[in-house]
């Protein structure tokens, strides 16, 4: 089982995309799955060991309704002081064989919090309020008073 991806820089965000969360601790994934249950996120195992006696594979969380799940997911990470990096991908094959045309991969970077610039760039994603996310991190975005009015 595994995800195969064809990464690229995507100038525009399509209406329909999946969110893939990786490099996240197992207990965080279990919490996210529970906290965002209404968005039906699912935990999957990728790169599952081919060895009967080995360590289990890497865990990821996938939510298909990316438009809806992205804002609360970013807010969850911010509230839990988890940094992230976002990359955009085309044609992702999900564990189980289903293919989604585009997806956002959110890699958790632990306690390395996002920069102001990174947070501002979130405005290109529908429904994501960078000011709100920054506030949840305890980060003040310069000029945010104007933009948030």
């Amino acid at each position, binding site marked *: 089982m595994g995800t195969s991806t064809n990464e690229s820089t995507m100038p525009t965000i399509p209406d329909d995309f999946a969110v893939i969360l990786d490099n996240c601790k197992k207990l965080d994934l279990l919490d996210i799955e529970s906290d965002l249950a209404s968005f039906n996120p699912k935990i999957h*195992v990728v*790169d599952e060991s081919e060895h009967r006696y*080995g*360590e289990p*594979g890497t865990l990821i969380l996938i939510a298909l309704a990316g438009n809806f799940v992205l804002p609360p997911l970013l807010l969850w990470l911010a509230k839990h002081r988890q940094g992230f990096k976002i990359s955009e991908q085309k044609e992702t094959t999900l564990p189980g064989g289903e293919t989604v045309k585009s997806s956002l991969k959110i890699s958790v970077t632990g306690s390395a919090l996002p920069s102001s610039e990174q947070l501002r760039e979130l405005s290109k994603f529908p429904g994501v309020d960078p000011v709100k996310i920054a506030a949840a991190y305890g980060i003040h975005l310069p000029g945010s008073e104007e933009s948030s009015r």
Partner: protein
Amino acid sequence: MASICLAARNPPGNQPVSARAWIDPITNVIRPRGVILRRDLRGFLTGPWPAYTIQPFIHELTHHWCFHSAVGLAVALLRFRALRRPAMSNREAAPLLFDEMLTVDTMLELIRPISEGLALFAEYDMAPGASPIVTTPLAWTSIAMSARSALMDLSQPQAAQELTNWLLNLRLSPDSLSRKMDFLSRPLTALDSAYFDGYMVVKRLYLDLSQSVPTFADTDLFLSYLRSYLFEDYGMVAILADRDCNTFRRQIAMIERLGTRLAELYRPNLEEDVATFERFNNREPNGDRSAGIPGLGLGAKELEDGLRIQQSLLSELQDNPEAEQTMRKLLDVQRLWLSRRSLAYVASEPAKVQVLNGMVSAWPDPADYEFPLLTGVSALPGTANTEGKESGWVSLILQPQTGIFASVVGVGARAAAIHWPPAIAGPGPEIVALFSDPECSPVVVQEQHESIKAWVDSYFREAPEPMKTWIAETRQSTQSALKRIADVFLGRWGENREVAVRCLRSTNRLWDLFDRDRKMFETFVALGLLRNFDVLLPSFTAALSNQGWDTGRALRFAIQIQAKGVSLVRNDEGIFRWLI
């Protein structure tokens, strides 16, 4: 069925660094997680080893130690026999092959949770104790955690205490605590389930048996006994290789044997048996154990039958001058596989190797590190000069039972030099021959491991009906049996067995008991590692609270969890001990 190709040669040494640890029980190849020789080799050779390599190493080494046993040998010999079947090509071969394949498959599945449980117990609970017996994993832990120039003598209380403290610090590190919390939470794969069930079973056995056997206060003695009890079980050997048994009766017998053996650990004379076992094992690691180990609850007839069957399996590997050349060659190779099972291949990676006038040097390939891996190592006799730097490999290989290890440098499939660490002076000629045998080169081992694995996988994947259905049914019934066996022990974690099993089988396992309080879960795991201390003493509680571990609150939380049906704290004559 096509026979496997043992002669193929891929570009040598190009195995990726293992992101996740694994072991193959048949060849006994191990790969601890994330060892990068170009970065770590110096630490391995001079000691202490890099801290992040130690727990994954202990885990895989414990597997290696378990499978270097009577049961491990029988499983390997049955698989070797199966690998010879395609060369036999007689009418009876197909059903016999099916029996051997399914027997090994069932055994590896059946013993998996307990194997993982033992490996996790070694990682998190094993420590030096009062017994003179020191297990192979603990001996290697002491090697890994000390400088080569100052190897520990664990018979000295000060050294034992020092190792205990080091292990405790390692286990209390954030990564180690997090890993333990992970495997105690919702299993997401079959491997994950084996980790949870196995650890909860082994830990329960330890908690129960150490009440009736005081010498089990020494966790290392407990580990040694449980490993021998299950893996030196000649009764199981007899079941595995009994030629008069059919496949399905054999499967039932294997399951019953495992369940009965575990139940019999609660026998009244266990303390006496452990004392016998301890006396017998207080000898050199390579002392003669060919007549079995006493104190393991085996009857004389059982032992005799098992030893006879083991001997018969071994005799199948003897050279037969009347056999065809292909078979004789295969037998020759398999005899070496048998010797090779004593070796643990820790890591291997590509290198540029130069042999010049009897001296060998190796550099990282690609050259992303400035310094050579090894320089000026004496070449093995007969090693020809290379034309400049040629593509080769560097490996770290050890023989756990003898405490010997070395880095081996090679070109193609052949070893060019063996570099013994300073503390290993003058290894015997047999050891040198084994380490330098071309069939023991990590390149050949890796290729053979991959070929065998591919052959086995395709056998099960491509089995025709009705065999396919039989395989699926056997695997399913093995899983059901394993769950039944584990539930017996999960039930012992509470006063009401059914309630305890229900709690511990909830979706997120132990995590569900903590109301999503991460710090409290971590506190329980940390206090479990500190179970030998009275953590409620004021001097302790202050130090622990600096880590965010509130012992008073943890005790109140334990009472809440107990009310749900699971006991995670025990009152030992006024001292509260956390159990996980």
